[in-house]
């Protein structure tokens, strides 16, 4: 897996295909949802090929179901591997969660219990997947609305142990950490300070819907101030991390996302000025 700092990217969405190809906007890299391109052909693959010629791509999956007790879906993994061979992404990610049970796909990122059993289960499966794909995976923290009574550790303790056991890295969704922190009443900085910066490969920034009593991780709003603040606090000590804006619904015009991306750049430049000057990244 490449460790390089890619800069500031966007999630590639179909609504922006034409703008990205015709206008070549100032975006350092794009992240694709892998499953959207695991089709035989047609428009998505056609546009991706053209965009790939101009931008680095990372692949982000939603259906690996790495935490499920179902058998690994090797048909899916073979298709994912084939796509990776065609796209040649900088790296590939999925989520630390389960999505399938008994062969049924929830199409949701369901939270794992933070237990030793989960750790052992994930460790085995992550090794199997990495061996099959022939590359390291990175895994994203999911937002959650519940925690389990039989949890044996905090989420950040769970991640720290997993990083040490699996030699995998994390995609930190700062919004997801903020959402879970509000929903479960913990300090997001406690979370962040337990994860070594070298374990974090990439950062997602996104928005949510705040209902006062709880937050739903909708990824359909601009990045709100508390998430920007948390991002700034994290990267002040983490060093340069490839960062992107992830919008999954209510997709705005590309220009609107570029403004948000510039905001991330400004925060990053302030935090990483010295590092970037010395490493010329």
């Amino acid at each position, binding site marked *: 897996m490449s460790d390089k700092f890619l800069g500031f990217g966007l999630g590639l969405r179909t609504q922006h295909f034409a703008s990205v190809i015709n206008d070549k906007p100032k975006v350092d890299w794009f992240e694709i949802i892998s*499953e959207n391109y*695991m089709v035989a052909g*047609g428009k998505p693959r056609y546009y991706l090929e053209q965009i790939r010629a101009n931008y680095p791509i990372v692949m982000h999956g939603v259906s690996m179901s790495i935490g499920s*007790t179902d058998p690994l879906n090797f048909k899916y993994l073979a298709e994912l591997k084939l796509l990776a061979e065609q796209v040649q992404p900088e790296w590939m990610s999925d989520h630390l969660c*389960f999505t399938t049970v008994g062969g*049924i796909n929830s199409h949701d990122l369901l939270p794992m219990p933070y237990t030793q059993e989960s750790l052992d289960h994930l460790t085995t499966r992550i090794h199997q997947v990495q061996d099959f794909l022939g590359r390291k995976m990175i895994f994203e923290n999911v937002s959650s609305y519940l925690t389990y009574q039989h949890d044996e550790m905090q989420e950040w303790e769970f991640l720290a142990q997993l990083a040490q056991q699996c030699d995998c890295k994390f995609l930190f969704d700062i919004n997801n950490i903020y959402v879970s922190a509000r929903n479960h009443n913990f300090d997001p900085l406690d979370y962040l300070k337990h994860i070594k910066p070298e374990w974090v490969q990439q950062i997602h920034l996104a928005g949510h819907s705040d209902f006062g*009593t709880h937050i739903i991780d909708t990824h359909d709003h601009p990045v709100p101030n508390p998430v920007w603040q948390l991002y700034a606090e994290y990267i002040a000590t983490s060093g340069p991390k490839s960062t992107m804006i992830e919008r999954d619904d209510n997709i705005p015009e590309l220009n609107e996302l570029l403004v948000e991306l510039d905001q991330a750049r400004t925060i990053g430049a302030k935090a990483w000025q010295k590092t970037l000057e010395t490493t010329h990244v």
Partner: protein
Amino acid sequence: MSNNKQQLAPSLAELQQEFMSLLQTNDRHIELRVIQQGLLTNVQRVDIYRTGYRLRLRGVIDSDHEMLGIYLGDDLYAQMVEGYIDAAPSQHPSLRFFGDRLPEYLENTAPFSDHPILAEMASFERTLLNAFDSADADTLSLSLLQQIPADKWPLLTFSFHPSLTFYECQWNAVESWQCLKNAEPPPAPTATAQSKMWAVWRGLSKLTEYKSMLATEREVLRVMQQGKNFAEVCESLLEHVCEEQIAATLYGFIVEWLQRGWIVDANWDG
């Protein structure tokens, strides 16, 4: 953690099954597994997942079957979606395939099965979706016709674009779909004694296209897709077209197929 709590703790597999039971059958057992904290009750916490599951799947049907939704109207559409989510849970990693069993559901489930046009309309929308992201292939242009030596025409065979499929229906499903697409009221459902044939394909602009087909053209395509050559196709047409018009009819078809991007390879070496 107390021993008592350890005894009560579910295995990972049990917990995941309980979670899926919540999503699929609204079995609330998993509420007992959840830590009570803050302003949200456990009922509310698990409801977020249950509601999200159904909304997500409904969104897929909304997007894939927009015209069917308009045709049904809000109440029947909601009944269809809720029933389908329960009857045909997703078994594929991609939501793209969630609606694949919708035509079958409509065909076999009352009250929708009383109106066969519904299953046909759903099937047509699935056919359009399949053409949208089927495999790519370079297509041949009209200049092909100048490259074929005159004495080789009898040996000519074609390969067709992978997106080209044929859709057959008894009811006026496509005409109704088309009216709805144009924001016009659909005609009353009517069936014809002989089924109607439609070609569906992804055009040169990467957009999905469709057209009705006469029996003659469908027969020619059926024979050519079997790998039969021009001479054999001419022979098969003797039942449908008078002999002196066969070559011109076939030539006309081939010109149209090339213009639509249906032909991806031609061979006249035998």
